[in-house]
């Protein structure tokens, strides 16, 4: 890579990422006439939103009575009270409108007999403040994410959105006053480095599930937005909270939607027992994901796993009508045949909890504006979707709330940008003289590194460390050792070496740059997890057990607060949880049971 020069292009706004959140934001900007650049490492319809299966939540009440307030209650309870109640109210109130709008865009939802959007039950979604399961997940068979992503892309084609496809954002441009002025990006086809100078920057880069060895996430989910934000001095929020989806295909990691249990699927152990009845007598198999994943791991740890190594449980839908499976779960059948070698009409699917979703991320308010540790907003910087932490998911996300999150906050961030750029007529601030130094130094280092570490080996070491030291159940000593280990891995990441030096479509370079981002996520996760000395939602530790004083090991007195990880100092600070919603009464703290 000889040509380390940078050209500068000016836009009103730049959106990084073209999954659901980025595309939803782009519609707002394009339709408002802003000169917008949308960058994506992959063609938009290949973004990971495409893999979402079961549904998007909205209290449409198409099959039975429902209310946004019940949805809000479920989301707060699901979050184990770590979610911010203003953002949660905002999201749940906006949900019906967001979903109906998608239908108007052309999304092919399944239909009820009356022709309305089809809804199915999902984990943790209940009617009347936690009473009994309710049909709230709006679905297009078990391909909801695919149908949604394509509909959003199509709407952008109609709006003439300008895409930069197969461009990887490398760093945020931030001046001395803390204003965000755009990004520096790599065109993968040519190796060119270009600065996108913008009045507003929206991060919609998705999650970083690839920090774990076993993950439902795509290869591209490398936390690029988190790495860029951390390097630019933005603290990362609640990074210790990772969702392990109960049903990844054993051995392959590929996702099997919770919608399978929504349609009547049952988890069974080696005794053929429906074990969830013991862990969640009311919601059973449709309890929250963290609860189900822990139950499964407990079953396996106590010797009731299935298979020759007793290391998975079974997801059984053989009792369902094959016609229902073909109609409502055709994609799951395909995946089971492809990746488990099993036709679920005839035999149960082997499943294990698998890393799936990052609840934490770049701190934002419910307008999609990024916020500093002191609560002020970062001028020019917005984030939405999995990269962001609004925080609507708190310590554990409810199924189907991710697709809702990206719709509602994708739009909110877009609206905030339109307002800022158009109404306030913000001008481009000058780029600082040294704006590209950090990025060019990183690229130069990579091009000239000798006797360095292999990207592949280093990434594997990181993934194995995360898997072993920071999984479904966490242990004090393992976390402490994990922090030491991940800092060792970080040293190797700083010295990675690539063999391929070509300028044309250099995937080795891309993977090395992705690893620079992954390690920030892994480190922030391990450090935040080690520090949080309680059990809450998806973060459960052996030294914070269920006691009378602290039911489920949750310690509200000390730990009802958001973690903020600061990269420069590798330290944590904390900020309070917003317990006051926008218009209704606060949902009071309660012990979580399903």
């Amino acid at each position, binding site marked *: 890579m000889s040509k380390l020069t940078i050209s500068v292009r000016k836009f009103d706004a730049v959106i990084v990422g073209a999954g659901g959140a980025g595309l939803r934001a782009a519609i707002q900007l394009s339709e408002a006439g802003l000169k917008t650049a949308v960058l994506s490492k992959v063609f938009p*319809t290949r973004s990971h939103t495409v893999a979402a299966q079961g549904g998007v939540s909205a209290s449409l009440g198409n099959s039975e009575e429902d209310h946004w307030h019940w949805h809000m209650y479920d989301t707060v309870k699901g979050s184990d009270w770590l979610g911010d109640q203003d953002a949660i109210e905002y999201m749940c109130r906006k949900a019906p409108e967001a979903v109906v709008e998608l*239908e108007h865009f052309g999304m092919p939802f399944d239909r009820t007999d009356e022709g309305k959007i089809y809804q199915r039950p999902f984990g943790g979604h209940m009617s009347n403040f936690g009473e009994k399961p309710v049909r709230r997940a709006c679905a297009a068979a078990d*391909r909801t994410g695919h149908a949604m992503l394509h509909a959003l892309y199509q709407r952008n084609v109609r709006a003439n959105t300008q895409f930069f496809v197969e461009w990887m954002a490398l760093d945020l441009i931030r001046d001395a006053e803390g204003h965000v002025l755009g990004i520096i990006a790599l065109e993968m086809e040519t190796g060119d480095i270009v600065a996108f100078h913008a009045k507003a920057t929206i991060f919609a880069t998705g999650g970083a599930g690839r920090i774990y060895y076993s993950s439902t996430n795509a290869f591209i989910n490398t936390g690029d937005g988190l790495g860029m934000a951390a390097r630019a001095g933005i603290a990362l929020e609640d990074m210790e909270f990772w969702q392990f989806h109960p049903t990844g295909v054993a051995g392959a990691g590929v996702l099997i939607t919770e919608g399978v249990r929504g349609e009547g699927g049952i988890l069974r152990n080696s005794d053929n027992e429906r074990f969830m009845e013991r862990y969640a007598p009311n919601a059973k198999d449709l309890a929250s994901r963290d609860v189900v994943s822990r139950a499964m791991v407990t079953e396996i740890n106590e010797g009731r796993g299935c298979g020759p190594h007793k290391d998975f449980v079974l997801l059984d839908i053989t009792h369902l009508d094959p016609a229902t499976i073909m109609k409502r779960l055709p994609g799951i059948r395909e995946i089971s045949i492809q990746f488990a070698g099993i036709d679920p009409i005839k035999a149960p699917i082997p499943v294990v909890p698998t890393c799936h979703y990052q609840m934490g991320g770049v701190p934002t308010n419910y307008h999609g504006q990024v916020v500093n540790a002191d609560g002020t907003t970062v001028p020019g910087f917005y984030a939405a979707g999995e990269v962001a932490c609004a925080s609507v998911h708190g310590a554990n996300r409810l199924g189907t709330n991710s697709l809702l999150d990206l719709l509602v906050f994708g739009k909110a961030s877009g609206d905030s940008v339109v307002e800022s750029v158009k109404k306030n007529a913000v001008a481009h601030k000058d780029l600082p003289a040294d704006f590209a130094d950090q990025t060019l130094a990183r690229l130069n280092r990579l091009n000239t590194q000798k006797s360095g570490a292999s990207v592949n080996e280093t990434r594997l070491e990181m993934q194995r460390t995360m898997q072993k030291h920071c999984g479904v159940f966490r242990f004090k000593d393992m976390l402490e050792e994990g922090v030491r280990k991940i800092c060792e891995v970080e040293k190797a990441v700083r010295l990675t070496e690539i063999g391929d030096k070509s300028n044309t479509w250099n995937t080795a370079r891309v993977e090395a740059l992705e690893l620079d981002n992954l390690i920030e996520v892994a480190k922030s996760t391990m450090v935040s997890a080690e520090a949080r000395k309680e059990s809450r939602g998806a973060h459960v530790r052996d030294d914070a057990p269920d006691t009378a004083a602290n039911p489920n090991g949750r310690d509200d007195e000390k730990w009802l607060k958001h973690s903020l990880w600061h990269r420069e100092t590798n330290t944590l600070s904390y900020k309070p949880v917003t317990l006051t919603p926008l218009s209704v009464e606060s949902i009071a703290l309660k012990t979580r049971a399903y």
Partner: protein
Amino acid sequence: MATETMQFKIYRYDPDKDSAPYMQDISIEVDHAIDRKLLDVLTKIKAKDDSLSYRRSCREGICGSDAMNINGRNGLACLTEISELKQPVVLRPLPGLPVIRDLIVDMTQFFKQYHSIKPYLINDTPPPERERLQTPEDREELNGLYECILCACCSTSCPSFWWNPDKFVGPAGLLNAYRFIADTRDEATNARLDDLEDPYRLFRCHTIMNCVEVCPKGLNPTMAIGKIKEMMVRRAI
């Protein structure tokens, strides 16, 4: 099943250093218990030689990134069972599109054709406050159409698309055109049919049916094309 040394022949071309493309012979140890799909083995090969370039993302057949020509047939690497492949396994980029590097092709022409069919719902009636209603039967008409992942396996296996990629919409584009024609919520059926009633855009399809043969999602573009033709005939009489 144990481990096995498998033989590959992979198309290589890096314009930065190669004057011409060549086929590279590669032997690789494959553990059939773990390396079940072609993509798993490609990942293994790439771990040894990081210059091998191909697209990939979801590894479960839903994003459409890793389409390539596998032993002469287009398919997705992530859905191709490694144990079923005849050796040496010959991997080439998708045919008919310009090669950028190794197994990565320039898909501009393919997406241009997709965009040309106006792949979005056209309905200028102000929408109701709630969702537009659609009967389950009408919705069922979209099955086998909306599932397209734009991997380009079909269009790049179609001789008509090879000869006229700039004029023939190709199977993927036409399948998507019919996805909107078949949608009871879409109001532009006539305009869509007008746009396709052209010796090249639609009528270059000679029902060779390679598209149906290779679609990794089991979709049937030829049938969709047939239905478009049928509608043209029906509205003419």
